[in-house]
């Protein structure tokens, strides 16, 4: 609790936190990512992951996917604040539980160890479209695509089997079916 002598109000109790995925279409110009990220840090919003790349080279459009948590009020604010930025064209906001949307993240996992352990690792990754990108006698680099929490689980699981480094793209999202977000 804040000091009651403060000239500011005392914080009120917080609501339930939800995880949301924002997809933001922006002009691919210098500083645009700083504007988006600065909005989050400046207003005290949380970023769990961030993925960004140009998706339309002729129109110069980049697509930013941000995973964040917040109360419904904060989530609403994030959307409205993002829409106010000049280089932002449109903002989509999905709940993590939304069945109409596909969420995927890619991870590269490097495992160093004996052959047996490496085999075990590859086997453990089976249900996440594993691709072996590099293999030596003592090591393997596996690419998997899965949900965020599945990758979280995998990295935990593979740690004792010799997982030495993990690289993740952050979640990206797309709606199912023929619908396109406008």
């Amino acid at each position, binding site marked *: 609790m804040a000091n009651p002598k403060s000239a500011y109000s005392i914080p009120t109790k917080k609501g339930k936190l939800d995880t949301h995925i924002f997809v933001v279409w922006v002009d691919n110009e210098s500083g645009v990512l700083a504007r988006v990220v600065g909005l989050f840090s400046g207003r005290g919003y949380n970023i769990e992951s961030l993925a960004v790349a140009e998706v339309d080279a002729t129109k110069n459009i980049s697509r930013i996917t941000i995973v964040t948590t917040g109360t419904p009020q904060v989530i609403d604010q994030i959307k*409205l604040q993002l829409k106010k930025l000049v280089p932002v064209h449109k903002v989509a906001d999905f709940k993590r539980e939304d069945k109409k949307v596909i969420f995927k993240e890619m991870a590269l996992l490097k495992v160093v160890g004996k052959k047996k352990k490496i085999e075990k690792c590859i086997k453990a990754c089976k249900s996440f479209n594993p691709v072996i990108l590099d293999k030596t006698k003592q090591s393997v680099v596996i690419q998997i695509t899965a949900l965020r929490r599945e990758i979280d689980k995998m990295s935990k699981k593979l740690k004792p089997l010799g997982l030495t480094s993990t690289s993740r793209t952050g979640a990206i999202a797309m709606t199912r079916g023929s619908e396109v977000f406008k």
Partner: protein
Amino acid sequence: MSKLYSGAEIVFKCLEDQDVEFIFGYPGGAVLPIYDELKNHSSIKHILVRHEQGAGHAAEGYARSSGKPGVVLVTSGPGATNVVTALTDAYMDSVPLVCISGQVPTHLIGTDAFQECDTTGITRPCTKHNWLVKDIKDLSKIIHEAFLVATTGRPGPVLIDIPKDIQFAKTKYSKLKKEKKINGKLHNKFSQSEIDELINLISKAKKPVIYSGGGVINSGPRASESLREFVRLIGFPITSTLQGLGAFPGDDNQFIGMLGMHGTYEANNAMHDCDLLINIGARFDDRITGKIDEFSPKSKKVHIDIDPSSINKIIKVDLAIVGDVNEVLKAAIKKINKKQNGLKTSNKHNVSKWWEQIQKWRTKDSLGFINSEKTIKPQHAVQRLYELTKNQDTFITTEVGQHQMWAAQHYKFNKPNRWMTSGGLGTMGYGLPAAVGVQIAHPDKLVIDIAGEASVLMTMQEMSTAVQYNLPIKIFILNNQYMGMVRQWQELLHEKNYSESYSEALPDFVKLAEAYGCKGIKADDPNELDDKIKEMLNHDGPVIFDCQVDPNENCFPMIPSGKPHNQMILGPNDKDENKITGKGKALV
């Protein structure tokens, strides 16, 4: 082949196309090509300030009193960083500014060159948008877009950073094209059903209150007219935020005073007890709401605002109308007039009991104070200033602190754009340079900065600007030798530990005025006050008025932190009364 223009020429061609008459600025190495070009453009006058912060605040004063965007021109590095306070101030109070800053040549960017700083990086969080011009071909398009961004929707500051080589580079100039919408950022898409719902709520209300804010001023003078018509039509009481003062006449019977931390007893109690709250162009600032959980607990809430991100940010509302205040009000008035006149009469009947309650609250006289024959009470000084200036069209700016609140409480504004104060950011040192800007926009009007002696010393150097351009601004200092608001908080909240809030070694303001080449007046006797104020008003030129007031006076009423609106601390007049009645409304 059409003529080629340099970047500096294009800057001025754009400013001309935007009908800019004044630039507030300060030269330096990285903007010299633009300053070279100044002499070739007679329609644009440059006002040389003494510090870039002063340029920013002067441009704010110009913008807020004229409704036109203020233009600032500064150099790179320290020029740009000095203007950051003013940009942030303009961002918080939604003032349209276009700031042009010089930058080191493109090839030196990122090398820690002389007077280099990451201007667009530093100003990103305190502007609506900013641009670093990397190609001369983009320059005119960017400048025109900058004016559009600054002035549309919820207004605010923008910055254009122009490297020196771009100012020299040459290209063709294309005239300003028809304005295009920028990424659909314009919000005026309210629907008739929302207006219908508003009318429905209005017709049902028994204890309504209207809470209007700076958005009404920003929407233009017509919005204030619409507000007056709307409020008179429905007969509701209206309160205003600090920034909204003047949109509705301060001496009108339907106006129940400013609300919030230092608002009137009747306004804050009306906010707390109402059953319908109509917010018109205000943003539920924390100085207004007090404790969020207990803010206006029994009311249906309506919020009219042009900025969608203001809706539900602090207070959840039952009806949100996103649009320009004037447009929304006009639509509402039209609808009310269309409906059978039943509404008008029955509605006034509905709220008559509520008005009786408000009259009861009014009898508290919460702005009252105990006047003195020996020392000048600051509230008395503001009241006398008001009485002696109310018959002419007067523009008031302020610094930040007790004097600001006393000015807001005791000076009555009858027109919009006459009241310029730093509300959101609370920038001490705002008022003097803002007065410079206001006087530039209104050369024949009376412009007074109601100041505190601590605040005004922060930007005192701008007196030199006022003297240079012969701007007859009046700096009316309520001198209590303390950072008064700090002292008040220390007295009420920090066990009278007056840590560093007393200013020793204050200058002699009369001599200071003379040193700047203007007039100084000192008053410390209440009996001489009127004559001295008249002397100030009659002097044709800038004046510094050192009004020595009671240093121990506090600003009441006051809502202590974390308290709802109905638990205010009232002034000394009320204390005894409370002991007798024991109502416990005052928490002293």
